[in-house]
């Protein structure tokens, strides 16, 4: 930073009210410092953002609401009851008793219905499995092998009926439920939301705002001044870093306070990772916006770029469900690398160096995009 006296100072606006005679010090020609343009561009970007309530909501409020909503939805949800329909007949009541038992907390919810109505309700997904007790004491099951809960219900009902008629278990099994902080859905979700939020604001904050400025001919107007182009791009990227601190900080603190999410890793590691992530997506945003003339066209482009990452990069659920062949591609996406590294550091307390491959993926995306964007960037 330049150290000589500079005018104007971003942080200290000159006094204005009614004082029409300029103070003597104002008259004296003063030289701007080397970095005055950069500092002002950065200051103005943050100022404009602050004055745009919609942007403040989408950047900061929306991810918080999302985590709150999903966190509550998945936090205290009781285990799903398996719903079973028993087809009416001679031994229907007996079967019902065996399934439900006397225990109010039974994991099975069973009712008796006529055959046609029962099958119809099953097809509509109201029940997971249909049980038909036969006259000879055997059972016939109707289930849907494509529905995991139906498959599970069949096994569970068989198991329950077996136990009810006095099966003796040969294995001793002890189960303990895992819902400790650090291994719940919300703990998986919040790092994913941090990653997604960095992607969103990088793409929109850089990509959209640049095209908007280009469409308004403001970029061209800047170009007509002695402003250094590098200062402008530097200010754009710096503003991303400032916002990154707020975005990541808000979600982390929110997760820790509201959901008691443990943060196992070092905050320094998170800051470094967040910076690399913010700059990587800033670079991708810059590349997306490097030639578009209209905000409408860049909006489409941004969505096309982000869509695959929303789906594949494990924001809301693990990407391990996708076919194994797709995994190398999924892992090469910047958001996947960012989310995986965030989860490793936040949930497992991993060190930065253990995440070097993911950091490298992010840096490559950012670096290559930035280089291409500079080459193709249109100011007019």
């Amino acid at each position, binding site marked *: 930073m330049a150290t000589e006296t500079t*005018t*104007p100072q*971003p942080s200290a*606006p*000159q006094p*204005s009210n009614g*004082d*029409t005679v*300029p103070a003597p010090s*104002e*008259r004296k*020609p*003063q*030289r*701007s410092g080397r970095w*005055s*343009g950069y*500092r*002002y*561009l950065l200051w*103005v970007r943050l*100022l*404009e953002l602050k*004055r*745009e309530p919609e942007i403040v909501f989408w950047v900061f409020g929306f991810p918080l609401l999302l985590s709150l909503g999903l966190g509550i939805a998945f936090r205290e949800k009781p285990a799903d009851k398996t719903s079973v329909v028993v087809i009416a007949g001679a031994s229907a009541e007996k079967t019902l008793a065996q399934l439900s038992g006397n225990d109010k907390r039974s994991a099975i919810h069973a009712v008796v219905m006529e055959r046609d109505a029962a099958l119809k309700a099953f097809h509509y997904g109201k029940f997971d499995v249909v049980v038909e007790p036969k006259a000879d004491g055997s059972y016939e099951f109707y289930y849907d092998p494509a529905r995991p809960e139906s498959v599970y219900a069949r096994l569970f009902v068989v198991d329950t009926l077996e136990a009810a008629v006095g099966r003796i278990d040969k294995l001793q099994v002890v189960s303990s439920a895992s819902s400790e902080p650090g291994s719940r859905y919300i703990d998986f979700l919040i790092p994913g939301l941090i990653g997604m939020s960095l992607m969103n604001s990088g793409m929109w904050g850089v990509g959209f705002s640049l095209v908007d400025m280009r469409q*308004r*001919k*403001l970029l*061209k*107007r*800047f*170009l*007509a*001044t*002695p*402003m*250094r182009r590098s200062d402008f791009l530097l200010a754009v990227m710096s503003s991303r870093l400032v916002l990154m601190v707020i975005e990541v900080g808000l979600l982390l603190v929110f997760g820790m306070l509201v959901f008691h999410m443990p943060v196992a890793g070092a905050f320094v590691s998170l800051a470094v990772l967040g910076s690399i992530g913010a700059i990587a997506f800033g670079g991708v945003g810059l590349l997306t916006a490097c030639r578009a003339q209209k905000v409408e066209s860049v909006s489409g482009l941004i969505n096309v770029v982000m869509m695959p990452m929303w789906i594949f990069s494990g924001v809301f659920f693990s990407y391990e469900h996708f076919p194994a062949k797709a995994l190398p591609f999924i892992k090469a996406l910047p958001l996947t690398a960012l989310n995986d590294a965030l989860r490793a550091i936040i949930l497992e307390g991993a060190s930065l160096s253990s995440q070097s491959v993911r950091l490298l993926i992010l840096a490559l995306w950012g670096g290559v995009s930035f280089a291409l964007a500079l080459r193709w960037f249109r100011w*007019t």
Partner: protein
Amino acid sequence: MGVPIECTNLRKTYDGKVEAVRGLSLRIETGECFGLLGPNGAGKTTTIEILEGLLAPTSGSVRIFGHAWNDNPRQLREWIGISLQETRLSEKLSVRETINLFASFYDQPRSAGEVLDDLQLTEKAESWVGKLSGGQKQRLAVATALVGNPRILFLDEPTTGLDPQSRRQLWEIIRRFQKKGGTVLLTTHYMDEAERLCDRLAIVDHGEIIAEGTPADLIDRLGGHHVVEFQVADNASASANGERTGEKSAWSTLPGVESVRNEDHAICLNVREPHLTIPALLEAVNRQGHQLEHLSTRQASLEDVFVQLTGRHLRED
């Protein structure tokens, strides 16, 4: 220090097809206010943007104070202030913040307070740009051009779409800049603006300069400083075109008439001495047995120059 603006044989071809500028040369001296006057699409904006170093010409050279744009663009940018035809400045910044932002790009900017005063924006200093009127926005655009303390001011259609009062305010600002020794290049399609504001101007049409000189010079070239415009009754205009052409030559022999042209249904005479022409005109109309429907006289304007040169009006739609 060299001539503020000089260009020779500028050409600009878009996509290898559209020739926006076709061999244009200019030399603008220190302290001059020079105008490029022409209809929309004449190539004025392309020309001024080439001179501003925002567009590269297809061929030809530009010198700003003797320097080419490739030499040291940042230094040249310190010397010039620009207002583009349409720039939408950020609506959620205040007037002062906007001026300070632009000031921060220059090595030795003027203070925001001084520029605000100069452009009569002090009252609006803390208002958001989005709340300004059209005239105030345009003054702010000029303020961002003046805050760098430039030696040359480039203004592309500075008063288009403004009300008369706002236009006059801007003219004042431009004159004040000029009085302090600044050089101004502006484009306009308002002939009155060119006439009142510019020391010299070039009339541009289809990418070429078709006339250049002081406004008085250009009007002088018409021959007469006055225009007598009249219309004769229907029995004349109902007759065939051939007869009217015959009439035209008849009018040109009237005393003091320098040139004649038909305009819609009226006939315009450029005359030196209306007090000699008008009595003779009335007599001639009488003699021909026509009825005079309309008669007016006015000072010749740049519009008349343009019409005479091109056969079209400046603001034809």
